[in-house]
């Protein structure tokens, strides 16, 4: 569980930590789109400089980010591999009928690899520097227009925030149940796959029961404390948009301009 970096929060007080979650979310999503503007080595170098700067600003060691890439590395390499094999053009190094390794293929593969890594790095920056609850609030704020389309945005974000709050409890409980089963002689992670699956049943059953009980308790508490889903609620957690948030979006705009200037123009050549 400790190995999963994506989705974890690292407490801190860096410039990026203090940004408004809305600004971070918008900037990160925008970054993914802006990546597609890059089409030559100058633009990629520039994007790498930008990504490195953001990582440095987050004040979290690069090793943490690399660990975030690890679970996805095979998927990335597989995609890159396909790209290399099936892109033609330029000097050909290996020729096996329909499969060729060409200069363009290698370059394209490398670009795609960079794109993947940068997307992971930037989205990891967001999740590492923003509390899950702030992310929820940020998403709630950004999705607010959807309320007009009768999407239950507030309910969804309340659900999300309650689920987030119970993750540590569930992990604790899983540990307790596993310990209890171990004390009764269950051995986890041994035997055939079927046998291993079978040992999981006596874990999930008690967890399921206790989660249902918990949910019932919670529902009672929420009702008594006056929660009605169809009534307008105010929010105690306030997001405040500050100058630095505007600056961060301006930086994104400048990044776009720089990329537009640096990219090789496909037209007319």
């Amino acid at each position, binding site marked *: 569980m400790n190995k999963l970096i994506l989705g974890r929060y690292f407490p801190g007080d860096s410039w990026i930590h203090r940004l408004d979650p809305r600004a971070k979310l918008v900037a990160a999503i925008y970054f993914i789109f802006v990546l597609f503007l890059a089409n030559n080595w100058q633009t990629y170098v520039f994007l790498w400089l930008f990504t490195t700067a953001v990582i440095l600003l987050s004040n979290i060691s690069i090793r943490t980010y690399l660990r975030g890439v690890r679970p996805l590395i095979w998927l990335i390499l597989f995609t890159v591999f396909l790209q290399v094999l099936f892109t033609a053009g330029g000097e050909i190094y290996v020729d096996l009928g329909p499969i060729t390794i060409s200069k363009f293929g290698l370059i394209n593969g490398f670009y795609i690899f960079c794109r993947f890594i940068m997307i992971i790095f930037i989205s990891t920056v967001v999740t590492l520097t923003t509390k899950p*609850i702030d992310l929820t609030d940020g998403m709630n704020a950004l999705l607010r227009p959807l309320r007009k389309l009768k999407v239950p945005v507030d309910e969804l974000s309340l659900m999300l925030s309650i689920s987030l*709050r119970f993750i540590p409890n569930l992990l604790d409980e899983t540990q307790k149940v596993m310990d209890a089963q171990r004390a009764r002689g269950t051995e986890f992670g041994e035997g055939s796959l079927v046998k291993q699956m079978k040992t999981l049943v006596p874990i999930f059953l008690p967890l399921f029961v206790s989660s249902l009980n*918990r949910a019932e*308790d919670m529902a009672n*508490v*929420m009702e008594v404390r*006056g929660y009605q889903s169809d009534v307008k609620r*105010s929010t105690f957690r306030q997001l405040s948009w500050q100058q630095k948030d505007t600056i961060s979006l301006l930086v994104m705009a400048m990044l776009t301009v720089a990329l537009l200037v640096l990219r090789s123009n496909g037209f007319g050549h």
Partner: protein
Amino acid sequence: MMSTTVVEVENLSFRYDKRLKENILSNISMTVDQGEWLAVIGPNGSGKSTLAQLLVGLIEADSGKIRIKNTVMDDTSKWKVRRHIGIVFQNPENQFIGTTVQDDVAFSLENLNMPYDEMKFRVDQALDLVGMSSLRHHDPSQLSGGQKQRVAIAGILALKPSILVLDEALVMLDPKSRRELLTVLQNLKRKENISILSITHDMNEAALADRIILLESGKVKNCGTSEQLFVAEPDLEPPFPELLRRELLKRNRNIPNEYMTEEEMVNWLCKSRLTV
């Protein structure tokens, strides 16, 4: 001093399984005055918790009436009534809705669509009352069970209620947290004049109440001050000072043959110069 009645229960009956004839609660009548501490005791299955759920409108009575602050509890009025009555349940873990202490206290205020400034003021006030102001930014995993229960109480206090119902709220706490929470409750009663209705198995806790109601198989078996009740019900395990008094009496010590509170017992012990 004139006391006003804040809770009035009239001939309340309830059963979970409507096919059965036997009631969980039958013909319960009782009142709670403003600023009164009322304990409800009784064996398991005597209907104590059912009574609590009826009082906050989580379930609906089959017959009888509940009046809270002169409003009759029904399906439409219950949302209003809940501004006057709050409940703390047994498991501290399952009552924490917010992600931090202050978020959780604000939850009931958010539900009223209260403006931010007033919420902030009320949250501060409520946290102060239960002595949790310094931990306002903590998340639930950093809190002890007793602290979580205090936050749950603060969440109710933020609504400025008249009645606080405790449904075995102290059961899952360690002795120290339990004592601390009891002190908090006593202060609330004294300073804020809040009525407390505590459902409990702990006779020492019950002995702190102004009045005790003993439930047995869904009926009020007895009701009175702890003095009246523990003398009238010899089968009931009495609170510690009374237990001690009975033991001393058995050993022919010259102790007055009447109920004693903890303070009276301490005073008597100091004066008596007991020799072994």
